[in-house]
């Protein structure tokens, strides 16, 4: 009460002036109403204080935001998107060049070229992902001079007229002919040659390099030859002689890091009866190493072997009286593998994403011997069961099975719509044109899978804004994109081997980035966590501060209006 009398003109004293004092005032200013007016300016002290608190509070927010920020390495989202759209919109085109050589035919090369092209377009099936951009040149060799098509590309000009004659094909030795043609055509990287010769013994052979030849009878017409030429170019050289739908086109038994581990196991079912061993070092050197080197651009292959003992099979075989042997049916094969007793072991030496192919040779025990494998049609398999263990023979079957995994047949005959073709096998397991097919397919598959992986990674990263992304991931993504670009440019210029290598590098880097342990961990710092930690402080405090600021502001406005009202009255009074 003392303050009231001592400070009659303080900002608050006017609001609730006591009834006893109010009647005294009107002496000097008769119109003064303490509820609506005040004489002094409203004070700014408290308003300033609350607002400074509010501002410092707001100023603190960016600092807090910075301090709880998590590290995210910038990822090139736009480049990832552009890579996948590039792969999706314009299909990857591999440039190929076909060269058809007709020896002893007297036809117009341009007309031949046109008819071959029309046959080719009939045969080509559109692969939605990757296709080939082929050019065709036709040469008709008349011995003394050559007729070249007007639209022939510079590739075909390297052919010397008269270097292939009908006499070369008289002999029946296909391998010699193959070598002869290889020296004539030269092994250009993406150029496939096809020679059609008139001769006595009709034959059609695909060599182990990048060419094929056909000897047709004297009387046969060119049109028939044209159909066969078109078929071999498309079905064999481009599609690898595979039948559609037999095995998924994209399937490659290559791990995500571009590695394959071939693990060979010799399983002695019962060592009490007999113990087999093998000299794998020798086999590795003589049989497997050439194949592994040939497949180098497609996959990085390592070989290991072991011998296991006491490994009975998990399923029974039945005694067949007629065959005088135990017969195991193919349909039971899934139950053949005894995972309890066969410790085939995933390899420690292999990385986490390598593909391990286990090859098992099962030596049956004495009481289930001889053991034969019965195919579904009732016949006995010739390749998957041996009597007399000949190692060479066995490993040829291995290589055949390995080829099968890559989608190639082990038969040396390709049966097309227009006739049969002999396929010359290579001692390396894979012929050059097959390796080309693999490289193309591998590049295509790798690039698409790299784009998909990077796309999922970018979607994942964008959908989780509070996920920590380490620098390493950013680097891997960058390198992967670079490798993918290199692979694309190499593929379009026709350098298959290096494009396959860099595409597999791109894919493995993309997988590395996607499966990086820091992404896999669940302990990322979620927004809910952040909210739960800071809300007990910020919610009540911010409420207090904001409400106080609002109240002060409102009060200041009110008081100012009062003061202005008094001032206006005072002005009118004077």
């Amino acid at each position: 009460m003392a303050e009231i009398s001592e400070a009659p003109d303080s900002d608050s004293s006017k609001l609730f002036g006591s009834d006893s004092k109010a009647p005294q005032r009107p002496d000097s200013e008769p119109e003064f109403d303490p509820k609506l007016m005040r004489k002094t300016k409203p004070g700014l002290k408290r308003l300033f204080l609350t607002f400074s608190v509010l501002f410092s509070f707001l100023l603190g927010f960016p600092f807090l935001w910075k301090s709880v920020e998590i590290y995210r390495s910038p990822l090139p989202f736009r480049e990832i998107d552009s890579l996948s759209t590039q792969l999706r919109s314009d299909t990857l085109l591999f440039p190929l060049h076909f060269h058809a050589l007709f020896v002893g035919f007297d036809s117009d090369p341009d007309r031949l070229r046109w008819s071959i092209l029309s046959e080719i377009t009939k045969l080509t099936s559109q692969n939605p992902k990757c296709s080939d951009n082929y050019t065709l040149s036709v040469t008709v060799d008349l011995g003394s001079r050559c007729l070249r098509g007007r639209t022939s590309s510079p590739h075909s000009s390297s052919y010397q007229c008269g270097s292939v004659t009908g006499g070369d094909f008289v002999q029946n030795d296909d391998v010699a002919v193959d070598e002869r043609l290889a020296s004539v055509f030269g092994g250009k990287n993406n150029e496939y040659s096809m020679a059609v010769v008139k001769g006595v013994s009709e034959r059609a052979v695909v060599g182990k390099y990048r060419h094929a030849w056909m000897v047709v009878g004297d009387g046969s017409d060119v049109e028939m030859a044209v159909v066969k030429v078109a078929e071999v170019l498309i079905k064999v050289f481009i599609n690898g002689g595979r039948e559609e739908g037999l095995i998924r086109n994209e399937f490659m038994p290559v791990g995500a890091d571009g590695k394959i581990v071939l693990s060979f196991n010799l399983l002695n079912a019962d060592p009490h009866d007999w113990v087999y061993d093998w000299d794998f070092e020798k086999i590795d050197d003589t049989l497997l190493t050439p194949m592994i080197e040939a497949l180098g651009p497609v996959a990085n292959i390592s070989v290991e072997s072991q011998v296991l003992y006491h490994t009975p099979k998990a399923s029974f075989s039945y005694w067949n009286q007629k065959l005088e042997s135990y017969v195991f049916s193919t349909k039971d094969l899934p139950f053949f593998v005894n995972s309890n007793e066969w410790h085939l072991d995933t390899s420690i030496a292999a990385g986490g994403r390598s593909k391990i192919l286990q090859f098992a040779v099962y030596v049956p025990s004495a009481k289930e011997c001889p053991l034969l494998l019965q195919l579904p049609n009732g016949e006995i398999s010739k390749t998957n069961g041996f009597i007399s263990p000949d190692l060479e023979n066995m490993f040829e079957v291995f290589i055949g099975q390995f080829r099968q995994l890559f989608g190639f047949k082990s038969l040396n005959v390709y049966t097309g719509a227009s006739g049969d073709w002999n396929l010359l096998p290579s001692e390396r397991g894979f012929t050059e044109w097959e390796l080309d097919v693999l490289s193309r397919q591998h590049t295509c598959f790798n690039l698409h899978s790299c784009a998909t992986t990077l796309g999922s990674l970018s979607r994942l990263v964008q959908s989780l804004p509070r996920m920590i992304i380490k620098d390493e991931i950013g680097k891997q993504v960058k390198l992967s994109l670079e490798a993918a670009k290199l692979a694309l440019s190499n593929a379009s210029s026709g350098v298959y081997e290096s494009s396959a290598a860099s595409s597999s590098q791109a894919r493995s880097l993309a997988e590395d980035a996607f499966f990086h342990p820091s992404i896999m961990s669940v302990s990322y710092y979620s927004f809910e966590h952040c909210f739960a930690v800071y809300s007990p402080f910020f919610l009540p405090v911010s409420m207090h501060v904001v409400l106080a600021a609002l109240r002060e502001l409102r009060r200041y406005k009110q008081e100012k209006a009062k003061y202005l009202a008094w001032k206006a009255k005072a002005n009118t009074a004077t």
Partner: protein
Amino acid sequence: MVLLQRPHILLLLIGTHQFLQCWIAFGSVNEEGQKQEEFSEELLLKTLPDHKLLAHFHFQSSAPPSTSNGCHHHLFPKAISQLVQKFRIKEMELSFTQGRWNYESWGGFDPKSSSNAKPAGVELWAVFDVPQHHIDASWKNLTHTLSGLFCASINFLESTATYSTPEWSFPPASGNVRYGTLPCEAVCTENLSPWLKLLPCRDKAGIALLLDRPSLYRGFYHSQQLHLTSTGSSSEGIDSGIILEQTLTVVLQPNSEMAIEVHASEKHIQPSWSLSSIFGKQVSGRCVLAKSSSVYLLLDRGLSAANGLTSENFWSNPSFELSANPDRIFLEESSSHSKSLSILYMFQVEKYCESEPFDIGLMWKVPLAWFCQQTPLHASSANSKDGSCELRVDVFQVVPWYVKVYFHSLRVFVDQQPRAVSDIIEKIHVSPSKDKCLLGFLRIDEYPPDANQGFDIPSAIISFPNFHASMVFLEDDSLNKSPLLSKFQEKCPVMPYTEVLLVPLTTPDFSMPYNVITITCTVFALYFGSLLNVLQRRVAEEERFLKAKAAKKTGRLPLLLSKLSAKLRGRRLEPLHSPPSSSSFINSKLVLKVILVAGLAVGWQYFFS
């Protein structure tokens, strides 16, 4: 962890008509004169003084140095060879142990106990052939690989609190060694199966057939070890040869039923046993892949002395009877200071087959008492040459960084007399933890699972560098040396282990961080709020407002309050200007409030009862 892809399995079958053909492929290995991979299996049996039986299985596989990068194997386990290749291991020992080795009655100073008595849990040490700065990374990768290989949580050894670099006082000490233990790791059959997988015959044939899981894990002590040594350096292009020793030591209680039947009156007689009564199984022939397959029965020096057996009369054994005749008998090379000799009976398993399985039994005829050789903890002047009584003892212990060890409180007793530490101890070396400072705070992820149980401090290794345990048996060199006997002849260091210490450390409530955050934030919020309130408060104005309010309407409570405040301020209560508007004694609002509070209280009671 590792993304396993389903391996593709392709099959080939080989059928054989004739037995002869099978050696065609086999013979080609021999032609080159290369050393072949070898495997041998042995079992040592020994009766212990406290009526128990020790069975020590010893399997040894060796791979000679080869040029094929160690990719192709015939007998040697592929996984181990790849492990050695990948991590460049020079030597490694991994042991899984359950139970405690009784040094008092089972002995501590013979080659067996000094190399096979291990601390409980998992112990791993490895010597690497890699540059110093790569060792820790190799160690971590190795622990992860081993934990996958043996189905155990060996990967916990990667945390720096569990392993260390012994610089001295650990026998294979060099800069490249890492040593770590997990005392609380439980060992069971899931660890034994992968261990058996490394044997070519696994437990399908040979001596390993005896490894019957229920009888093994019923024992008093069970220690399964894997020791590998790679010979030669791998830097010379030729790949190093590897020797892998797998040992399993079990201490079992033979069923004493047989003894009771025969000598029901005599309680002190040793229980008679046979392989089939201990393990419940018999050996039906050797593992065909083993170079040698033999079972040994060892009579201790103490036992043979108690038996009265000397080098002359060891063929006649008056106190016990063996169910099978030994093929050979080895005598220990006589040493100068003890008259009695250990005797080793050898049985070859090769002779036995499925129709006539091997089963050795031992029947005691007279009660005997003897003692095993103790650790050289008792040193007397007789032991030393120059008369001064000196015994060098090295103690090595890994203590996690969160346990503080005060060396000023170290006390040393010699002959139960306290001695000054400086007189006895020559050297103390403490290598402090490198990546943790002694703050005393453990992070939440550094607590072990079930932290309330306590923290296990690994056992200390006590080693006697001047003592080596070895047992040399007289044998003619023409015979192929058995790996087990040659192991006995090696001078192995005597290394008893102390017991594991369980330290009950205070464990926090693991949900505490959130509670702490919440309460701290609430306190801060309260402080801020009230500070702001005080800052913007207008005391005078409020008082006037209150008074005006009181003037309008004065209930009983406000009146009391104003009276009280007046009293507190020491002033006379000002007379009220207006009479109370409501004269009713019980205000309706007040009644509502009281009912509300009562209802809340009742609800609270009801809810929590």
